[in-house]
């Protein structure tokens, strides 16, 4: 069947579809900005409305909400140090320090530009290489997932520079937290202390809202100064300054967007691993790795481009193989089936009209994020800066409570959020930061599941080493990246140490 691109473009650019894309991006951005409210929830609520629409229009709106919600996660991460979703964890590392130092406006613009770049790269790769790239999802086995999780965990070393030991202990604690509940392999009940509440484990989103947000709230009420430094009057959105940063980080943006798309293709890996791996790679490749974690624009560009690139990447296995990579993909897959669209390689030939209109719609929605994001970002930053603490504290606290509750409509998630927040605050007193704990918690289940599956398969084949590493070329590549990530800072430190005495000589 021949593809009529003229018809497809006319459909995608129809005023109705453009209006739907704009509405979807605005709704998604606002929902994604509220901690706890996820893209999945937004899409699930709006799916029934799309049943009455033309299939392509409905899909454009769902795609726009999805991409807007992933981008919206940057708002809370930058302005209140609260990643509402795991994919925004790494955004807090440099976004919040930038906002604290009066560069919140620049951080918001950088996040918007990076999200648009990542989203466009993901959407273009989806349009051009989907059937080929879908094979990547099939090439990744349990051992690769294990090494990918370990690659994410290597970030602990850079996040805890100054005291790596505490970082490793924090990550171990996160891994222990990830074991609570029913074991992923073996089915044993672990560390629930007889409580049925803990059987399902600790919800990651509740824990990360608590660990990041409660200590910020506790600090906010202690001092009368402003929560964020205000930007000087008339400075605007610093668009051209942000463009300059993007130009200097062009390779970083391209690399992070490709990492985001490739990780997005892997079912279950998602935006959290994509943004963590991209951040780690950006830090490793940077000439100034010591600036990361203190408000380095390159770190923010890496994470935001990667997590938005996962949107396009996630659609690749969903559309080609019928395997949803993330929960929002699963909801959209359901909507596709209800619309009577048959998923699989023939989708790109027999029903190519609908699928290409949807892909162009996703691209248009991503481009619409630029004006929408710059506008909303500007006012969101001003709102947070100018709202008195007497109102900002209850507003943020209320959003954390209703957001944690909304995840599963379960009051226990709120209790877990508050307990984790207080634990995070107390551990902060002892010099333990929240990020290593969160990394352990997020990546723990992926690592354990991958390792145990590789162990079971390897034992059955009497070749555990081969199954885990030696017979798996993709694993070699990931292990090489792990070694480079760990060794490069040590080599740099040794070189700097060797250079210093020479420089000291007259």
């Amino acid at each position, binding site marked *: 069947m021949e593809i009529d691109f003229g018809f497809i473009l006319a459909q995608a650019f129809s005023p109705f579809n453009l209006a739907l894309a704009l509405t979807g991006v605005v709704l998604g951005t606002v929902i994604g900005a509220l901690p706890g*409210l996820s893209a999945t929830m937004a899409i699930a*609520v709006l799916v029934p409305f799309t049943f009455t629409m033309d299939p392509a229009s409905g899909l454009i709106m769902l795609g726009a909400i999805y991409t807007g919600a992933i981008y919206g996660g940057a708002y809370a991460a930058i302005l209140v140090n609260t990643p509402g979703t795991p994919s925004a964890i790494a955004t807090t590392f440099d976004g919040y320090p930038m906002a604290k130092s009066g560069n919140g406006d620049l951080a918001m613009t950088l996040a918007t530009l990076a999200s648009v770049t990542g989203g466009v790269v993901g959407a273009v790769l989806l349009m051009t290489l989907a059937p080929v790239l879908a094979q990547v999802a099939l090439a990744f086995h349990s051992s690769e997932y294990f090494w990918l999780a370990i690659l994410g965990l290597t970030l602990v070393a850079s996040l*805890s*520079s*100054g*005291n*790596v*030991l505490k970082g490793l*202990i924090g990550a*171990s*604690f996160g*891994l*222990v937290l990830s*074991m609570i509940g029913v*074991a992923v*392999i*073996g*089915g*044993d009940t*672990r*560390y629930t202390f007889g409580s049925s509440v803990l059987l399902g484990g600790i919800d990651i989103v509740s824990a990360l809202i608590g660990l990041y947000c409660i*200590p910020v*709230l*506790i600090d906010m*009420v*202690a*001092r*009368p100064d402003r929560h964020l430094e205000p930007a000087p009057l008339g400075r605007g959105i610093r668009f051209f300054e942000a463009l300059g940063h993007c130009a200097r980080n062009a390779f970083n943006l391209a690399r992070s967007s490709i990492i985001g798309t490739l990780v997005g293709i892997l079912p279950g890996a998602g935006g959290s691993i994509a943004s963590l791996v991209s951040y780690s790679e950006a830090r490793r490749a940077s000439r100034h790795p010591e600036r990361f*974690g203190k408000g380095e624009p390159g770190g923010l560009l890496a994470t935001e481009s990667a997590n938005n690139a996962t949107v396009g990447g996630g659609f690749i296995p969903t559309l080609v193989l019928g395997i949803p990579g993330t929960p929002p993909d699963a909801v959209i897959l359901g909507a596709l089936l209800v619309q009577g669209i048959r998923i699989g390689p023939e989708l790109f030939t027999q029903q190519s009209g609908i699928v290409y209109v949807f892909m162009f719609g996703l691209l248009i929605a991503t481009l619409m994020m630029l004006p929408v994001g710059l506008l909303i970002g500007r006012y969101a930053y001003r709102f947070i800066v100018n709202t*008195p*603490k*007497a*109102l900002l*504290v*209850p507003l943020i*606290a*209320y*959003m954390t*409570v*209703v957001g944690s*509750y*909304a995840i599963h409509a379960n*009051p226990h998630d*709120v*209790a877990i*959020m*508050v307990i984790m*927040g*207080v634990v995070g*605050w107390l*551990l*902060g*007193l*002892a*010099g*333990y*930061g929240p990020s290593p704990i969160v990394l352990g918690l997020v990546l723990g289940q992926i690592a*354990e599941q991958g390792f*145990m599956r590789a162990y*079971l398969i390897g034992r059955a084949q009497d070749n555990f080493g081969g199954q885990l590493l030696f017979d798996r070329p993709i694993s070699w590549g990931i292990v090489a990246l792990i070694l480079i990530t760990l060794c490069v800072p040590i080599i740099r430190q040794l070189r700097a140490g060797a250079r210093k005495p020479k420089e000291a000589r007259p």
Partner: protein
Amino acid sequence: MSQNSEPAVRGGRDWAGAAGSVLFAAVGVYVFLTSFAMSPMAAMFPRTIGAAMAVLSVLQVVASLTGRSGRSLEAGDGVRAQADGLGRRLSLVAIMVGWAFLFPVIGIFVTSFLACIGLMFTGTFGRPTSLRLSIYLAVVFVMVVFFYLLMSNVLNIPMPRGLTF
């Protein structure tokens, strides 16, 4: 979290770090020992992580007590800096804990409104005029109503009613 509010602990003893590490060592030992009651498949990860955590924590205790503990990039403000405004900090913690545990019993709307008023006063510095106070109360009320309606009516999330609503 400020990065520079307390000097690096290198050279001085890091008592808070040592206390935290003792706690982590205890958790590690507990995780390691309890793994022996699990099936081999479920025990492998806890045993490895528990042992590693206990060993690393003991090393950190030694480092903290001998003044060799560095300050990590993301560390919190430290005990001394946190003493500033301690009453307000503890008030916020108490309100949040009470809110989280009471809202399923009393009802989310009433608990949230009361908790938000408590947090509003906790975040108020100086003596506000009665007009400003009335405006703050009105804004808090509108905010609680808005999010309640957003959750219950727009997103169709069943909100716990408890004894009130």
